[in-house]
């Protein structure tokens, strides 16, 4: 973004326009339906942050048991040799113990760092939405939002691992792997955080930009 931070920015909102979230076309605020893509036109509203917070809270709630409960239930020799249950962090430690540092890093990133980063990023975005910011800061927020939205789906990698392992390692008596309660929790947590990120209206980022005109008005 080459716009200077202190340059006056005219947003669609200030121009009395509402952008379509589906196709990006701006319409006068009186319009309620985008004639191009048929999507409903909603002007940015801080109330949508409610949904962000709500999804985020739900995601966070599910993230706790996802880390406390076992992710994988491994039973060897029909459970005679022992059933081992691994939580996410336990799995990471175990992978490191076996020397699979790469896999451990991936799992750790996908299952711990990314979700937690997402929580922090979304809550920060929701917190600062509508607050005064420079254009540069607004661009940064937008960038962060894009990253969060992009990366959110990758958090499902852990769930996929569990799903694939459960499907593959069904060797009957010898060994079998079943998803634990944490898998569901984690999947829900990821889904909720994705919904949370989707509920966030990035147009709110631009709401707090300094406006010369406002100063002029006052």
């Amino acid at each position, binding site marked *: 973004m080459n716009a200077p931070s202190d*340059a006056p920015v005219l947003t669609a909102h200030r121009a009395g326009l509402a952008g379509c979230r589906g196709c990006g076309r701006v319409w006068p605020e009186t319009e309620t339906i985008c004639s191009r893509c048929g999507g409903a036109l909603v*002007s940015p509203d801080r109330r949508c942050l409610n949904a962000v917070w709500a999804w985020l*809270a*739900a995601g966070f709630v599910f993230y706790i048991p996802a880390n*406390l409960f076992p992710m994988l239930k491994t039973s060897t020799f029909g459970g*005679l040799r*022992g059933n081992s249950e691994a939580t996410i962090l336990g799995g990471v430690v175990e992978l490191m113990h076996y020397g699979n540092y790469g896999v451990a890093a991936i799992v750790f990133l996908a299952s711990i760092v990314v979700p937690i980063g997402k929580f922090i990023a979304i809550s920060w975005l929701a917190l600062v939405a509508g607050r005064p910011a420079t254009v540069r800061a607004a661009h940064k927020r937008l960038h962060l939002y894009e990253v969060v939205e992009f990366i959110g789906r990758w958090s499902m990698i852990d769930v996929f691992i569990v799903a694939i392992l459960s499907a593959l390692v069904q060797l009957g008596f010898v060994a079998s792997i079943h998803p634990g309660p944490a898998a569901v929790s984690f999947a829900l947590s990821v889904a909720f955080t994705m919904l949370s990120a989707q509920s966030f209206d990035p147009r709110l980022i*631009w709401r707090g930009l300094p406006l010369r005109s406002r100063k002029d008005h006052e």
Partner: protein
Amino acid sequence: MTDRPSPERSDTPLKPAEPARKPAARAVRAGLPLIWLVPIAALIVTLGVGWNMIASRGTLISVAFKDATGITPGETALKFREITVGKVESVRFTEDLQQVEVNMRVDKDLAPYIDKDAQFWIVRPQVSAQGISRLDTVLTGSFVEGYWDDKVDGPQTRFQGLDKPPLTSFGEQGTWIVLAAERSRGMTEGAPVLFRGLPVGRMQNLRLSENDEGVLTDVFIAAPYDQLLTTNTVFWDTSGFSVSLGAQGLSLNVNSLASVLQGGAEFATLTSGGAPVEDGHVFSLQPDRGAAEANLFADESKALRLTMLVDESVRGLETGADVQFMGLTVGRVTSLAARVVRGADGQDHVEQEVTLAVTPERMGLSGEATPEEALDFIAGQVRAGLRARIASAGFFGTSLQVELVDLPGAEPAELDRTAKPYPVIPSVPGDISDFSETAQGFLARVGNLPIEEALKSVTDMMNSVTAIASSEDTRAIPGALRGTLEDAQAAAGEIRQVTTELRESGAVGQLRRMVDEAAAAAEAVKLAAADVPAMVDQIDAAAVKIEAVDYAAIGAEAEGILKDVRALLGTEDAEQLPKNLSETLKSASGLLNDLRDGNAAGSLNNALASASTAAQDVSDAAKRLPQLSARLEALAARADAVIAAYGDRSSFNTETINLMREMRRAANAFGSLARTIERNPQAFILGR
């Protein structure tokens, strides 16, 4: 993306057509939007799940073990009847570091049953004489097994684990008894307890008795079989094998290989009427069945105690020795004591007091007989001649036993029922064949055997035999004999030949003819005396012819034979030949002597001399010619007889054949003797 209103940037700031200012009150009015139900629901679900997890976690109990072999926290299971009911959560040391405390999470619904009678042990693979057990734990790893009953009796969370699995578990019905023995022989942990060879229980908890007097072991007899136990039951050791040398001779008793390896005990209820046993009843483990049976008699309260007084040595009589009645064991000796008794002569002397425990049932009395009745019976028997005596028992008579024998001829005696402590049964001197005496006598007899003389004789004999056998002469015997016989045969042949020659040459005929001629000559002499000188010449020639027959050679031959025989007989070795041989030889010698002295040649010579004389006499006086002729005839007959004496069936031949037979028999006898000695040297000592 927001539209960038860059075209308008240079223009005057755009004024929003209609600022979309929504009053804050709208948001407030909306209250909490429905979306917030999602996190609330999530929270409720999560809390619910969490609560469920925590609530169903079960109760934590801790069991102290000596060690935690094979226990992995988080993996090792707690099993009850082979169903996993819990899991080991953590393992730590007790405060004194002497034990390991295993904390286990037990299923909630089972936790109330885990009370003070719960038992825990670690199940591991075990290899023992009983076999290999719990091999599955090699694969699955050890686990903690617990057992508790179905009574809820004040839950408890701290337990002391067992060192090893209990042999009987899971609340099996049965009876616990205790076996006591002096030594742990046959008692091993887990050894089977058999009934008629069928394992019905196991030993466990082998331990020293509290006062250190013996060994105790708990035995659990499983349910249907514990009905077999009564207070009359006897237990005996079945481990290993036993070799016993008893009154019944040698007895070898080998049980199954398993019992040889692991020991074991067997029980039997030999008599009826015992009371059922309670848990913890102590039985004594007897070394073998015989002892168990004997012990049964001794243990019986109905056993009748009798005393017998013995004034002879009871060395060899032991406590526990049998009391025999008509060949049946009816009791045993329970004690031996000496006591001083003042005899009839006023002298104190020591008597052995032997206490017998006799089972009246074994003597044929009914089981209900009272001791009084039994004593009455015995008293009656005593009056009829029943006496107690010490008798030897066993293979060599080394051990003694007490016999109750019926001696109708015994001096009358009574059962002394007033005697203390027990009635005294009259006794008679024992029938002890003292083994030591017997053995001594036997040895003495063996010692008295003239073994040395026998050996000396045998040695001498052997020496002689060897000398005979090895001497050239003996070896030459057959040859010499053959030579002798050949010579004799040759001699006989020669003699026969001579005779034949004589016959063939017509000596006799010639003589007859000569005589005839002489007669004719005499006639002629009678007719004309002129021919007499010619006749005399003829007679001379005849005499010369007769003399030409080599009688000397015959004599020399015979003499040679005799010399040989005498040389043979002259050898010392030959002297030791059986006498008849010697005699035979002697008779042969005598025969030959006779032959030599037989005047055969001499008489011939004499005859011829006489003939010569006769011829000369003829020349002197012809009238004596008939006498001459008669004499010549007689001479010829004699010569015939002599010659016949050497004929085929002559006594000489017979004698010689007999001699040969004797020799052969003697040689055979020696040969067989030598073989016998070679084969069976000790036969010399034993004489056969």
